[in-house]
């Protein structure tokens, strides 16, 4: 135990030294995002609300998607989109973080993981702020008394999928950051992949709509996407308070947690193996 402690000691000391930088970088990302825009931080709130309205209009009226399974469709959409949006912005920002900070990395020593880490954390803060949209939209429906959302104390369970998504984003972000230093075109490929992920994750549709038999190979493949389980459990905690146990998927919770931790370990391993070479390629 003491040996393990001793091995981690320099890393912890180094982290403590640069924790101020981490905070500065997170602050900077958030501050600069909306600088020079009239509405400022309010965009964090407005952007998901407007996308929700567009998507809800398209899928409810044009495709007629809302059904009894999804419950309140706008809230159903919003839950999925917010989590998906967090994952994509966090991983994309982490991916480009090393390249963006090239000028700094070339001249000052800073532990390099600070950059992807700050990118993920600043996306996380933005995500937490954007959750207020969810609160407002649910309050709107519940006050109106029609299409109410069954929110109970179980809503605290959202912490679990949120934290898993955070760990997952950091892991995937570090993998992508490493790869994109050596291969720039990964950034373009990832955009396409994100689009695919949007449709592979039940964001606009309910999985039952796909007419896959329970236990079928197609459904299993679909569930391998960690966002499937994360979005599903997030919704279970927000939308179906009284039927929580039927909707919350324990197996997927363990699976997504294991997946996220595996990604984090791979991410750190890959990053540490290659970080000394970054400077030669950026």
């Amino acid at each position, binding site marked *: 135990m003491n040996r393990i402690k001793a091995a981690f000691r320099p890393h912890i000391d180094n982290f403590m*030294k*640069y924790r*101020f*930088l981490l*905070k*500065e*970088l997170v602050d*900077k990302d958030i*501050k*600069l995002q909306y*600088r020079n825009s009239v509405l400022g931080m309010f965009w964090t709130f407005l952007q998901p609300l407007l996308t929700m309205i567009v998507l809800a209009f398209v899928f409810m009226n044009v495709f007629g998607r809302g059904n009894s399974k999804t419950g309140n469709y706008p809230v159903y959409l919003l839950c999925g989109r917010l989590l998906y949006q967090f994952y994509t912005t966090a991983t994309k920002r982490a991916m480009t973080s090393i390249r963006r900070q090239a*000028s*700094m*990395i*070339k*001249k*000052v*020593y*800073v532990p390099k993981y600070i950059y992807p880490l700050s990118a993920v954390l600043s996306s996380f803060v933005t995500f937490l702020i954007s959750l207020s949209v969810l609160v407002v939209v649910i309050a709107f429906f519940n006050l109106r008394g029609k299409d109410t959302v069954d929110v109970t104390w179980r809503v605290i369970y959202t912490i679990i999928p949120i934290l898993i998504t955070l760990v997952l984003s950091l892991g995937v972000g570090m993998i992508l950051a490493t790869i994109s230093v*050596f*291969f*720039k*075109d*990964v950034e373009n*490929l990832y955009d396409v992949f994100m689009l695919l992920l949007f449709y592979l994750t039940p964001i606009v549709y309910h999985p039952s709509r796909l007419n896959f038999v329970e236990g079928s190979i197609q459904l299993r493949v679909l569930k391998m996407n960690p966002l499937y389980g994360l979005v599903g459990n997030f919704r279970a905690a927000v939308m179906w308070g009284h039927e929580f146990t039927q909707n919350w998927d324990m197996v997927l919770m363990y699976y997504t947690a294991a997946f996220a931790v595996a990604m984090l370990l791979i991410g750190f391993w890959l990053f540490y193996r290659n970080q*000394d070479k970054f*400077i*030669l*390629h950026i």
Partner: protein
Amino acid sequence: MGKYAIEADHVSMRFNINKEGVDNAKEYFIRLVKHDLHYVEFWALKDVSFKLKKGDRMGVLGFNGAGKSTLLKTIAGVLKPTQGSVHTEGVIAPMLELGAGFDSNYSGRENVFLYAATMGFSRKFIQEKYDEIVEFSELGDFIDAPIKSYSSGMRSRLGFAIATSVKPEVLILDEVLSVGDAAFREKSERRLESLMSDGVTVLFVSHSTDNVERICNKAMILTQGQLVANGDCADVCALYRHMVNNK
């Protein structure tokens, strides 16, 4: 606490230069399949060892491409040596390029805190030095304007003010600082002198033996990545002048 500020132990630095500069996956895999990936090995530093006592001021002399900048970067921790190790003690202020840690969308004020954080200083600590930094940089009201509107002189003045006001233990200087106008240059030299009399360790890279002799008490010569002379400033400078004349 040891008595050395910098210890370089058999430091070697190798660069693999990719001739074609492949930086995307598509090209990489095409070339991999065609066995068309070529790397050129280049040793920028070869087995460099030296120790620098606290408070010593070392001048690093050498012709272009001798590995001076690479050496400074390994000591600043920016580059990790391929072989050997570098050990440093205390806060290092690498003045390789002033204002390297700035964000151009940020205002001068915000950049003061950001820059100091890259050196490991907290917001609270810098808050106390803040007025002094702004006054020294002579930026006045511009401190609240975004850095991207600054001239290069303004940027380096601010960078210099931050890097020296935190009282670093080790200063890494690349060439003489030609910051700002004559008056500011004089002011910055006075500040460097006061840091030196407080016992800061200096590593100073230059082509000019005059500048080295003015600032340093120790000197070394690098030639093609190798350390060929290391010792008392006057002796090494004499040797270097001899080398220059025979070139």
